[in-house]
């Protein structure tokens, strides 16, 4: 059984059919990429699967359980993590606290224990701080452990989002354009980072425009165009597909 199964998924915003009858399935442990021209519905698809939007029709199953319509925090409980194309960093917090908040569900969140500063809670928090520092090291942000989030560069913040997602100890991670806006060197570093994440046993779903990175990392690729599924398969299959070439390069009249 696949880890994630999507069947006939659609969402309409008024008359705009942003995603139409899209089906695919993702096996555990692979890197699965979603590509397509701008406006193809890639981020909308992410928002549907991670519970930010509720689909108009269709079905999403995680481990066989139907999950569409569940809220993002319920999906987080089931091991789903994500990053955002347009950064969603809490600028009112320090960098490391942004990572620590990713471990929210693994902590004792009781209000009264917190106000009394119970030692057990405090010790757990100290341990988490170390763990978060380790994660920042892992994504290459070791030098920012003591920094404020609003003092970091765009490229660093992109990785901070990945560290926060990893702090959830997810089974499945959705990365929405992790390399967008980065220079070639940074892009390559993110490429290595995604590989490391996948190697640690987390299933990765990637939206990315950098084709070199997509071809290099992906086990399978889904191509969207105008909200529809255009093609699906391995990198080579997709590259050879005439519909895909037409969508990206255009056709002769």
């Amino acid at each position, binding site marked *: 059984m696949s880890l994630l199964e999507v069947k006939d998924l659609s969402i309409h915003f008024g008359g705009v059919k942003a995603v139409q009858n899209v089906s695919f399935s993702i096996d555990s442990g692979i890197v699965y990429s979603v590509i397509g021209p701008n406006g193809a519905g890639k981020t909308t698809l992410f928002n549907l699967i*991670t*519970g*930010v939007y509720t689909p108009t029709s269709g079905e999403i199953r995680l481990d066989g359980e139907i999950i569409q319509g569940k*809220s*993002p*925090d319920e*999906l*987080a*409980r089931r091991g*789903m*993590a*994500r990053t*955002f194309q347009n950064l*969603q*960093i*809490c*600028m*009112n*917090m320090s960098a490391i*606290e*942004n990572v*620590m*908040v*990713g471990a*929210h*569900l693994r*902590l*004792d*969140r*009781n*209000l009264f*224990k*917190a*106000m*009394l*500063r119970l030692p057990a*809670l405090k010790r757990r*928090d100290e341990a988490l*701080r170390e763990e978060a520092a380790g994660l920042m090291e892992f994504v290459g942000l070791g030098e*920012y452990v*003591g*920094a*404020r989030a609003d*003092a970091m560069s765009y490229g660093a913040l992109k990785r901070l989002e990945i560290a*926060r*997602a990893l*702090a*959830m100890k997810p089974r499945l991670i959705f990365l929405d354009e992790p390399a967008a806006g980065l220079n070639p060197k940074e892009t390559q570093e993110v490429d290595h980072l995604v590989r490391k994440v996948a190697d640690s046993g987390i299933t990765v779903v990637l939206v990315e425009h950098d084709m070199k990175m997509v071809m290099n990392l992906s086990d399978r690729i889904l191509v969207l165009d105008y909200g529809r599924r255009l093609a699906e398969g391995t990198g080579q299959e997709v590259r050879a597909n005439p519909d895909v070439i037409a969508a990206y390069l255009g056709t002769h009249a």
Partner: protein
Amino acid sequence: MNKRIYYGLYGLIVILLVLPFVVPNNFYLDLAVRMAINAIIVIGLNLLIGFAGQISLGHAGFLGIGAYASAVLPMHFGWHPVTAMLTGALASALLAALVAKPIFKLKGHYLAMATLGLGIIINIALRNEAQWTGGPDGMPVMPMALFGFEIGSDRQWYWVVAALLVLTVWGSLNLIDSPFGRALRALHGSEVASQVVGVNVARYKVSIFVLSAFSASIMGSISAHYIGFISPNFADFFHSIELVTMVVIGGMASVYGSIVGAVLLTALPQALATFEGWETVAFGAILMLCMIFMPRGLVPTLAARFSKGDDK
């Protein structure tokens, strides 16, 4: 983590211990008690506004519920003042919980309007139920007694509110630097990001609103007993605005800022009283200047100035 944040608490304890022995007369002691009461309310409100990023323009309503519970229940029903105070606080918390769920679906101006409406409704109820509350004329409040010992003098009240202030500051500092507090600040920073890491945003907004309403209600009760008389003006819109102004002037998301804001705005009208008729203008001008030159509030602005180079 940052142990230095607690240094301010030690400083506060020292000031509170020394203060009653250095104030020249009871006028200043009375001022200190009112400052401390406001500080506790404003800290609770700042958890909601500054840390969680929500707004309440009706908080004086909860003060009113607490104050009138402490006035009406002992007077008309012979309740013990402590039971009355706790009943008022629970009623405030319950009301806050009931309205919070629908209200916090709103954002920005709409949320401000809804909380404003809540405060006004409470105020109207207090004004109209004249057979219980004395209506617009207000009513006297019976003295507070603990274990058969009556708290009456300014000095006794001073120690009570000073202890409560220290506890409130300690509890709030603890809360902010905890998993609960981080979730609260995260939903302020980015609601969608906090949701996808598993924060049940609605529950956290409700919790902090209930907590701040509970705290306001207790302090409303204490104010009522302290002053010995209560009128609906205590629960009106202008008092709500005054409390929010204290949060903003002192500094959003700053516990110590809340104290500074409460102290300054409680003292300012007294200090400006010599301007005779012009004090409201001076008051407004000072607030405007504060907002233009220190939009983040006094304490965060000054803290940033002194810790430059500390941050990366």
